[in-house]
């Protein structure tokens, strides 16, 4: 495992395989997003209770899922940075923060647009909503901290430590609907359980989720490549690269 991390975390190796991977993510994301959104917007039926507002879920659910998943990914990168000191992990963490911020903001805005016609309010101080808002502030704080520290050699470690402190918010968001009596509904889609939604709505949702997941993957890898080139520009392997 360690040998794998060190081998694939070498800057030159990472740059080359991430280039291929990001291209793949980019193509899949365009196809899956187009397919998922058109399916969700035009061909999926409306819900008997929520009406057509259920179509917002094809964006809201993947965005909310990604806001948490990206943070969990960042926490893993922080662990690798702090324990094994693999520099790529620190760059991945910082690049993921921007994408995570956008996904969290998207989850909050689409949730609000769904909440107004369904709950009758743009915003309620519900545990899950408040937890998600705190997550947005954590993402923004990490980005601000990274910008403040700049090229400081200790910046990777400091951002990684703060990232781990923010990890406390994740279980609160995830389990809030079980721990407290909240207005926000429970999960309809769980990895280990049978889905509670009909196939006509499940498939466009999964398609949209795949598209947004691949888009996030593409953006994180592309931003990490840029950060890597900026950090390593004096190295020989960067000087031999050819740009179109």
């Amino acid at each position, binding site marked *: 495992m360690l040998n794998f991390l060190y081998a694939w975390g070498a800057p030159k190796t990472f740059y080359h395989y991430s280039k291929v991977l990001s291209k793949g993510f980019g193509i899949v994301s365009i196809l899956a*997003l187009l397919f998922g*959104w058109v399916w969700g*917007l*035009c*061909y*999926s*039926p*409306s819900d008997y209770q929520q*009406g*057509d*507002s259920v*179509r*917002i879920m094809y*964006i*809201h659910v993947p*965005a909310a899922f990604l806001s948490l998943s990206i943070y969990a990914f960042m926490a893993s990168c922080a662990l690798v940075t702090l324990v094994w000191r693999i520099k790529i992990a620190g760059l991945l963490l910082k690049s993921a923060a*921007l*994408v995570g911020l*956008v996904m969290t*903001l*998207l989850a909050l*805005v*689409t949730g609000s*647009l*769904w909440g*107004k*016609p369904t709950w009758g309010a743009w915003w309620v101080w519900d545990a899950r909503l408040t937890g998600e808002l705190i997550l947005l502030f954590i993402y923004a704080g990490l980005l601000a901290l990274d910008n403040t520290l700049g090229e400081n050699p200790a910046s990777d470690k400091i951002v990684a430590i703060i990232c781990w402190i923010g990890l406390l918010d994740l279980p609160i968001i995830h389990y809030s609907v079980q721990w407290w009596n909240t207005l926000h509904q429970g999960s309809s889609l769980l990895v280990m359980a049978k889905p509670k939604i009909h196939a006509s709505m499940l498939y466009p949702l999964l398609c949209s989720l795949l598209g947004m997941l691949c*888009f996030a993957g*593409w*953006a994180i890898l*592309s*931003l990490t*490549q*840029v950060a890597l*080139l*900026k950090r390593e*520009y004096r190295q020989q392997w*960067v*000087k031999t*690269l050819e*740009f179109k």
Partner: protein
Amino acid sequence: MMCYLSELMHSKYALYVGGSYLTAAVSFLWVFYRVKSSQHHIQLFLKKSLQQPYE
């Protein structure tokens, strides 16, 4: 497969649904722009740094 778009256009949720998809599209385009502009800037920076080998 039945198309529900015309029903959606006339429903009371049209603005909320449209607003959500528009917000998502704008967010993704902004991230795309950020990625592409940073790639463009780093390429210019690397080309410039190669022209100044002693710095």
